[in-house]
């Protein structure tokens, strides 16, 4: 069965420090991968999505970046964190070809709670 791993679960970082969040998927190949952020309250904001190794699409201009060095690995990074980067970060995956795996949807990781101080 497919599983998605996201770590760390919580992180407290000072302003100006770098960030690296990692997400890996097991049990599937060629997944679509996504990074979402959820600020205090509700609403998930799509940050990045990737349809293949090295292919990254950015949805929101910011000081964050994403990379996909391997098929099932997705990394969210920042060189210098801002206070506004605090939030709940979620990684998700979906199948590339929905016709082969109905019903179609995202599977989310357990999330990383980032607090920038």
């Amino acid at each position: 069965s497919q599983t998605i791993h996201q770590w760390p679960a919580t992180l407290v970082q000072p302003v100006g420090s770098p960030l690296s969040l990692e997400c890996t998927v097991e049990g599937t190949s060629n997944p679509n991968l996504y990074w979402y952020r959820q600020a205090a309250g509700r609403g998930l904001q799509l940050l990045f999505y990737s349809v293949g190794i090295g292919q990254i699409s950015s949805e929101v201009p910011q000081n964050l970046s994403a990379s996909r060095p391997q098929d099932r690995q997705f990394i969210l990074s920042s060189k210098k964190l801002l206070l506004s980067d605090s939030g709940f970060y979620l990684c998700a995956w979906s199948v590339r070809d929905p016709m082969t795996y109905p019903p179609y949807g995202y599977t989310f990781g357990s999330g990383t709670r980032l607090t920038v101080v």
Partner: protein
Amino acid sequence: LAKTTQPISMDSYEGQEVNITCSHNNIATNDYITWYQQFPSQGPRFIIQGYKTKVTNEVASLFIPADRKSSTLSLPRVSLSDTAVYYCLVGDLIYNQGGKLIFGQGTELSVKP
């Protein structure tokens, strides 16, 4: 991508049936309707998905009228553990290779004893 509108919050009592309606007036021909449930500090969890008419699984039912401009998530006999935020999403999941789904603000359901 079709924009969705759903109530910000709803209250219910244990044992009642809860219906959450989502409006998506600009839904496209290839769009599917998907509902997710999210508990605090957890990732959203897939509940149900449909294209038209009615879909039922062990958790919920999804009603979609013929014009597909709205959909209703029905939760039978809710319990306290159904207290969560429910998201309605509309997206092209067949012809759009990225399968990108956009989350709205969701509906915060509060179930009381």
